[in-house]
């Protein structure tokens, strides 16, 4: 700088001035990334509505979505592809925002709900509810109980070291494996028809969703996403260190518990809809972080990227081997697995 104490906002940011002296700080790069992701998501959504066993022209698909066009197309879009698209967007958003929160919380990119075992915990309980093993409660509620149980166990076994460090992750992986085994055991012990009904859940699919579960997830996202946005500001400070963050006036414990609760809620409700498509929770935030400003916690970007990945993976699953449908969980595993390996091989940039 040349001219003395020039008044300046931090680099690469813009200040939004709202009435009443309110100000919001916006990272320009993050804003551009979000715009790009939103456009891509819109394009993917139109594709998801248009493509399938019957191809509908994009314009007709959008018209039908808003109640125009002929009755057959309207049924196809409004009753079949539309709800499935909505479920994809909601689950992708929920998994990715939960992943983003957990990664930031744990200071580790591998600490997503899918790897910590929260997905598997939720799945085991949801499957139990579908099979009628034990008490029969609605799958979302059971999934929530399962997710909370898995998280609590991972915490307990990590021995009070909190969400940081490898003990938590290793404990979580073990819990996930256990719950996965419990799910398989339950499927093996019930009648084949019941097992067939619950099976898609254990792989991850948008085909077997219940409308109720989607509504519950919608409500969960309506609460969880604003909460995550509000927490992001504080979580950004917590990226320094707990000690420093506390010195800057952050109530570290409260912030951590709240973030964890939001992550568990979003994961559980998403699992109740689509099963354990955990890799979206890893890939979504990763894409967002890659595109966004380095200093931020990209909640909006993760939500958009997660929805994008989910919608595209589901679309690929529907189209690739048509008329046979590949469950979305398998598509994300095939794409996400190598991606995970790539992250591991680039281990020098481990901390988010």
């Amino acid at each position: 700088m040349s001219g003395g104490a020039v008044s300046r906002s931090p680099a690469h940011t813009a200040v939004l001035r709202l009435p009443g002296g309110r100000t919001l700080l916006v990272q320009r790069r993050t804003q551009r990334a979000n715009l790009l992701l939103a456009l891509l998501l819109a394009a993917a959504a139109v594709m998801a509505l248009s493509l399938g066993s019957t191809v509908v022209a994009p314009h007709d698909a959008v018209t039908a979505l808003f109640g125009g066009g002929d009755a057959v197309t309207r049924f196809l879009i409004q009753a079949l592809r539309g709800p499935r698209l909505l479920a994809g967007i909601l689950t992708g958003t929920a998994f990715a925002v939960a992943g983003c929160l957990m990664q930031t919380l744990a200071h580790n990119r591998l600490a997503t709900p899918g790897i910590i075992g929260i997905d598997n915990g939720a799945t085991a309980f949801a499957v139990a509810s579908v099979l009628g093993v034990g008490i029969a409660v609605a799958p979302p509620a059971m999934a929530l109980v399962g997710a909370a149980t898995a998280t609590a166990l991972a915490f307990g076994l990590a021995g009070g070291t909190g969400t940081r460090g490898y003990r938590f992750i290793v404990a979580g992986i073990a819990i996930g494996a256990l719950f996965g085994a419990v799910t398989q055991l339950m499927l093996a012990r019930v009648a084949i028809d019941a097992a067939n009904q619950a099976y898609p859940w254990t792989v991850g699919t948008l085909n077997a969703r219940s409308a109720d579960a989607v509504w519950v997830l919608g409500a969960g996202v309506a609460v969880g996403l604003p909460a995550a946005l509000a927490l992001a500001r504080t979580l950004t400070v917590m990226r320094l260190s707990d000690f420093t963050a506390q010195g800057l006036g952050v109530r570290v414990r409260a912030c951590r518990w709240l973030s964890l609760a939001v992550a568990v809620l979003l994961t559980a409700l998403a699992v109740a809809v689509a099963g354990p498509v955990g890799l979206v929770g890893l890939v979504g935030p990763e894409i967002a972080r890659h595109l966004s400003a380095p200093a931020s916690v990209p909640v909006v970007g993760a939500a958009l990227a997660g929805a994008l990945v989910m919608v595209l993976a589901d679309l690929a699953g529907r189209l690739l081997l048509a008329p046979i449908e590949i469950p979305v969980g398998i598509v994300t595993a095939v794409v996400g697995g190598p991606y995970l390996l790539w992250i591991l091989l680039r281990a020098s940039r481990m901390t988010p």
Partner: protein
Amino acid sequence: MNRPVTDGDSRLQADRLGLAYGRTTIVRELSLALPDGRVTAIVGPNGCGKSTLLAGLARLHPPSGGGVVLDSRDIRDLPTREVARRIALLPQHTVAPEGLTVAELIRFGRHPHQGLMRQWSAEDERVLAESLAVADIEALADRPLDALSGGQRQRAWIAMAIAQQTPLLLLDEPTSALDLGHQLEVFELIRALAASGKTVVMVVHDLVSACRFADHMVAMLDGDVVAEGPPAEVVTPALVRRLYGIECTLIEDPVTGSPMLANPRRPATARS
């Protein structure tokens, strides 16, 4: 350079403070008043509880007994954000996310003054520019932290603490990783902050620097204060022996007059 402590005003005090990690007691029944507007140096051997005391004073380490009094109130009764508006603490080991720039780091210092709907005010902007100027790192504002030298990085962190705009500034070994030139830069910055009215408390390893740059010295051993007062009065061969187990001769710095250690040696019994 140093100013003697004359009046007894103190906004930050420890009152029979006890600090522990689990069952290991680090600090036991320690009482201390930190003089306002002065630079206080806390010295003592490794593991004597200096850093723990600093964390305890900033409410970052919960007391196991007694308490800390900030502006005549028990510090535990104040909201976290309120404490952060009055006390800034710079830890010895700092970590920043990769790629974070100096200006972004300093921005974090404004956190206790901001809210969800007040993320960047004109005041924040003014303080950011001022903090950069005071720490003399204006040219580095947009550089990533990991691309700076140790001395520059330390000044960026101090600038973050300055941006917090607290009357009290606690620094844990602010110069420990720096070479002599950069140490001087940081100490001079600390003196300038005290001259502008801030109360500075720093943990310092180097006794000579502590003597030269502090108005008030607190010597700690095994979690207890063993001596307190103006450096020239506190530092004696007996204290050096007691703190560090070494013999030395004290001489006066021919220019500044502050105490210096000459011919430090381990006592004959320890050498055998």
